[in-house]
C-alpha cells in the first residue's frame, strides 16, 4: 500500500467549469454563493423597480394588479431566500474556516450539494412567471387560503422550490455548526471566537430549528391543494390561523437569521477602523444568544389583528418589547467601541456606521410596532414596509456590502478603488433613505401595503419613494462595476490591508491560497 502523504498546498483548483461544479473547497463555494446572491439581488431589485414604477403615480399605468401581486411576491421571496440568506452563507463559507483556523468546512461534499441545488430552486421559482395563471401572487408570507384554494396552479412549483431552498439552508447550517464545533484551531476557545463566528453559530441553530417548520407548512399546503386535506381550510374543519402561527413561528426567527450574521460583520468592521477592541465582547455574545432565544416566543406580534385573546396579545407585546433590550445593548456596545477610538472612514466603515444608524431607526419603528394597540393602526401599512426595509436594506444588505469591501482584498488579492467605493456608499445612503423614509409617512397616513394603486393623498411621497428607488437601484450597478474592476484591475493588496484589523484571516496571504491552515495555527 502506498501512503497518500503529500502536501496539498501545491495543487491548485481544477481547471474550467469543473472547478466550480465539483468544488468542495470552502473558498470556491463561498464565491459561488456570493455571485449567486448578487445576481438574485439584481433580479429581485428589478422586480422592485417594476413595483415602484407602477406606484410612481396613482392609477394603473404599467402593469395589471394580478402581475403587480406577482412582483411583490417574487421580490420578497427572491430577496429573502435568494439574495440575503445565500450571501451570508457565502460569507460563512469564506470566512468561518479562515477565522477559526480550519482548513475547510467540516462537510465539504454536502457544502457543494447545498449550493448547487439553489440555482435549480430559483430557476423553478422564476419560471412560474411564464406559466399559465402566472407566478405566485399571494405575497412572500403566502397566507392560506389565498395561497391554497385561491392560488394559481404555479403554487405547486413554488412549494417545491421552497422545499429545496429549505434543504439547502439546513445543510448549510449543519455544516456551519459541525465546522465551528469540531474544527477550531488549538487555542481558539469559545470566548476567543470572532463575533461573526458566534453570530453564525447561533444563526445556524435558528435555521435548523425553523426551516423544518417552513417545510412542514408548505407540505401541508401541498396536501390541502392536491390530496384533499383541510389543514388550512375552514370549510373542512381546519383553520387559516394555523397557517399564520406556523408561518410566523418560522418567520420571526427568520428575520434574525437575516440580521444576526450582519451583527457579526459589523462587530468585525467597527473595531478594525476604530483601532480599538470591540467593547463588551461577552455581552455581545449573550445579547446575540438572548435575541435568538426570544425570537421563538414573539411570533404572534405579526398577528395582533387576527383576533388573538387579550392575554396572548399582552404576552406577545411584552416579549417583543423585551427584544429591544439586547438589541439596544448591541448598539450601545458599537458606539462605545467607536468612542475614544482612532477612527478612519474607509468604505467598509462607512457602510458599518450607516448600518448602526439606519438599523437602529428600523429598530425604533420595530419597538413602535410591538406596542399592540398602536400596531392596530400600523399593521399591514407602508409603515411596516418602511420598518422591515430599514432593517433589511441598510441593515442586512449594507452589512453584506460592508463585508464585501472589507474582505474583498483577501478574496481576490486586490484592492478596490476607494473613491469609487465611497461614491457607492453615498449614493446608496441617499438612495435608501429617499426610498424608505417617506414610506413611514405614507403608512401612518393610511396607505395599506401590497396595493397596485392608491388614493391621491398618498401621491407625493410615493413619487419621492419611487425616485429614490430608481436612484438606489441604479447605484448598485456601480457596486457590480467596482467588484469587477477590482478583480480585473485592482491594485495588489497586502496580507493585511487594514491597519486595525484583527483575526486569523489576515495572517494568510492575499489572495488567500486555495488551501489554508492545513497545519492549524497556534492561537494565543
Amino acid at each position, binding site marked *: 500500500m502506498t501512503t497518500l502523504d503529500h502536501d496539498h498546498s501545491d495543487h491548485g483548483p481544477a481547471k474550467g467549469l469543473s472547478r466550480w461544479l465539483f468544488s468542495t473547497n470552502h473558498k470556491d463555494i463561498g464565491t459561488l454563493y456570493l455571485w449567486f446572491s448578487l445576481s438574485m439581488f439584481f433580479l429581485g431589485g428589478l422586480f422592485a423597480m417594476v413595483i415602484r414604477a407602477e406606484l410612481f403615480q396613482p392609477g394603473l399605468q404599467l402593469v395589471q394588479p394580478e402581475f403587480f401581486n406577482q412582483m411583490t411576491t417574487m421580490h420578497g421571496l427572491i430577496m429573502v431566500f435568494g439574495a440575503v440568506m445565500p450571501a451570508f452563507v457565502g460569507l460563512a463559507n469564506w470566512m468561518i474556516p479562515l477565522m477559526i483556523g480550519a482548513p475547510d468546512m467540516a462537510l465539504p461534499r454536502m457544502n457543494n450539494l447545498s449550493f448547487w441545488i439553489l440555482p435549480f430552486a430559483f430557476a423553478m421559482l422564476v419560471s412560474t412567471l411564464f406559466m399559465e395563471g402566472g407566478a405566485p401572487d399571494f405575497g412572500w408570507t403566502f397566507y392560506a387560503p389565498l395561497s391554497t384554494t385561491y392560488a394559481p396552479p404555479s403554487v405547486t412549483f413554488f412549494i417545491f422550490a421552497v422545499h429545496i431552498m429549505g434543504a439547502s439552508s439546513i445543510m448549510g447550517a449543519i455544516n456551519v455548526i459541525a465546522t465551528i464545533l469540531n474544527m477550531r484551531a488549538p487555542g481558539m476557545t469559545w470566548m476567543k471566537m470572532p463575533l461573526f463566528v458566534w453570530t453564525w453559530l447561533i444563526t445556524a441553530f435558528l435555521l435548523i430549528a425553523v426551516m423544518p417548520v417552513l417545510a412542514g407548512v408548505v407540505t401541508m399546503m401541498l396536501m390541502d391543494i392536491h390530496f384533499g386535506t383541510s389543514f388550512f381550510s375552514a370549510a373542512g374543519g381546519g383553520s387559516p390561523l394555523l397557517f399564520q402561527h406556523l408561518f410566523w413561528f418560522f418567520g420571526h426567527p427568520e428575520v434574525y437569521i437575516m440580521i444576526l450574521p450582519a451583527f457579526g460583520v459589523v462587530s468585525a468592521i467597527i473595531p478594525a477602523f*476604530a483601532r480599538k477592541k470591540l467593547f*463588551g465582547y461577552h455581552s455581545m455574545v449573550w445579547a446575540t444568544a438572548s435575541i435568538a432565544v426570544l425570537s421563538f416566543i414573539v411570533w404572534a406580534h405579526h398577528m395582533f389583528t387576527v383576533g388573538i385573546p387579550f392575554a396572548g396579545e399582552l404576552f406577545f407585546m411584552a416579549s417583543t418589547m423585551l427584544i429591544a433590550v439586547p438589541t439596544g445593548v448591541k448598539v450601545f456596545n458599537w458606539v462605545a*467601541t467607536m468612542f475614544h*477610538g482612532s477612527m478612519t472612514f474607509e468604505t467598509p466603515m462607512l457602510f458599518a456606521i450607516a448600518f448602526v444608524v439606519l438599523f*437602529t431607526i428600523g429598530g425604533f419603528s420595530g*419597538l413602535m410596532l410591538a*406596542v399592540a394597540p398602536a400596531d392596530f393602526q400600523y399593521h399591514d401599512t407602508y409603515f411596516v414596509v418602511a420598518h422591515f426595509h430599514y432593517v433589511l436594506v441598510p441593515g442586512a444588505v449594507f452589512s453584506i456590502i460592508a463585508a464585501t469591501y472589507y474582505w474583498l482584498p483577501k478574496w481576490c488579492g486586490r484592492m478596490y478603488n476607494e473613491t469609487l467605493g465611497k461614491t457607492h456608499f453615498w449614493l446608496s445612503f441617499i438612495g435608501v433613505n429617499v426610498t424608505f423614509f417617506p414610506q413611514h409617512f405614507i403608512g401612518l397616513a393610511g396607505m395599506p401595503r401590497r396595493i*397596485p394603486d392608491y388614493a391621491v393623498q398618498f401621491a407625493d411621497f410615493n413619487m419621492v419613494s419611487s425616485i429614490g428607488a430608481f436612484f438606489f437601484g441604479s447605484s448598485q450597478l456601480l457596486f457590480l462595476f467596482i467588484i469587477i474592476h477590482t478583480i480585473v484591475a485592482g491594485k495588489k493588496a497586502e496580507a493585511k490591508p487594514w491597519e486595525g484589523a484583527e483575526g486569523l484571516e489576515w495572517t494568510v496571504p492575499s489572495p488567500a491560497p486555495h488551501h489554508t491552515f492545513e497545519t492549524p495555527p497556534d492561537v494565543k
Partner: protein
Amino acid sequence: MSARMQKSALAVLATYLCAPNLFAEFRVNMPEGVTRISEEVYSLHMLVFWVCVVIAIIVFGLMFYAIIKHRKSKGAVAKNFHESLKVEILWTAIPALIVFALGYRAFFTLEKMYDYDDSALTVEIVGYQWKWRYSYLMDDAAKEDSAQGTQFPVSFFSNLITPESQINNTEAKGEHYLLEVDEPLVLPVGSKVRFILTSADVIHSWWVPQLSVKKDAIPGIVNEAWTLIEKPGTYRGQCTELCGKGHGFMPVVVQAVSQTEFDQWMLGKQDEARQKASLNVKTWTMGELMETGERAYNTYCAACHQANGEGLPPAFPALKNSAIALGPVEAHLDIVINGSRVNPAMAAFGAQLSAAEIAAIITYERNAWGNNTGDMVTPQDVSNFGSSQ
C-alpha cells in the same frame, strides 16, 4: 430616457409643483381620529415616538461626537477600554425599565379595546373578494317583530364606485379616488357599536384609521371589534390584508350620523327590505322575471360571463348553450346558490342575492341568447331549493 418620457416626467413634475392644492392633504402622521380609543392610540404612538427620538439623540449624538472628535486624522489615539460590567448592567436596566413603562401604559388602552360589552348595536361585517357586506343584527325584540313581519333584516354590499376610466387614467381622478363606495356603512354617533367580522373567501382586514379599528375578516373565524364615534362625518379606510387582485379596490367607508338621522335611515332601509321581501313572495310573470333577470345578470354576472352569455373561455365559461343552463334546473340552482366546488372564481351567490334576484337571473340565463328552455324559475323554487339542503 426617451424625449417623450422626459417630457411627460417634466409635465408631471410641473403639475405637482404648480398645483399643491390638487393633493391638499399632505399627511405625515397617524390621524388622531374621532373616538376616545383612537385618541388614546394616537397619544401612545406619539409617546413611543418621542421616547425613540430622545434615545436616538443621545445614542447618535455620542456616536457623531466620537466620529468627529476621535478620528485618526485629528491625531486621536485609541484608548484601551473594552469591558465594563457596570456600564453593561446600566444600559440593560435602563432600556428594560423604559419598555416596561411603555408596556404598562399600553396595557390599559389594549384592555379597553378588548371590552366588547354593552354595545347598543351590532353590525356583522363579511369580507368578499372584493367588497364588504354589512348586516345590522337584530336584538331579541326585533327578532320577534321580524317573525311577525314588522321588522326586516337590513343587509347590503358596499362596492367601490370609482370608474375604470379614472383607474386607467383616461379621466381625471376624483377627490375620493378609490375610497368611495355605493353604500357606506351608516352608524350612529355617541353609541357603542360592536362589529363581528368574518369572510366568505380569503382573509381580508377591515380598517378605518379615524376609528382606530382594524380587524381581520377570516373565513371560518368570527372576530370582534367595537367603536364609539364621537363626531359625525365620513371616515374612509381600506382592506389591509392581501386578498387577491382586487385588494387595492375594496375601500371601507363609514358614515357617522346623529342618532335621529340614523333611525330615519334605518326606517328607509326597513322599507327597502320589506319591498325586497315582498318580491320574494309575489307571483311573477315570465316577462317580469326576464326583465329583472337581465338587469341583475348584467350587474352581478356579466363581468365574467359577459353580457352576450359567451363568457371568456377558458377562464369564464359561456352560459349560452352551456350544459348547465340547458340541463336540469337543480344543477343550475346549485352552482349559483352554492358556487362551484372546483373553482372559487364562481362564488356562492346564495348569501349575496335575494331569492327573487336569483330566480330572475336563472330564468334569464335559461331563456336568453337562444337558450330557449322555456323554464320559469320562481323565488319559491329558490327558497325551496335552499331549505331542501
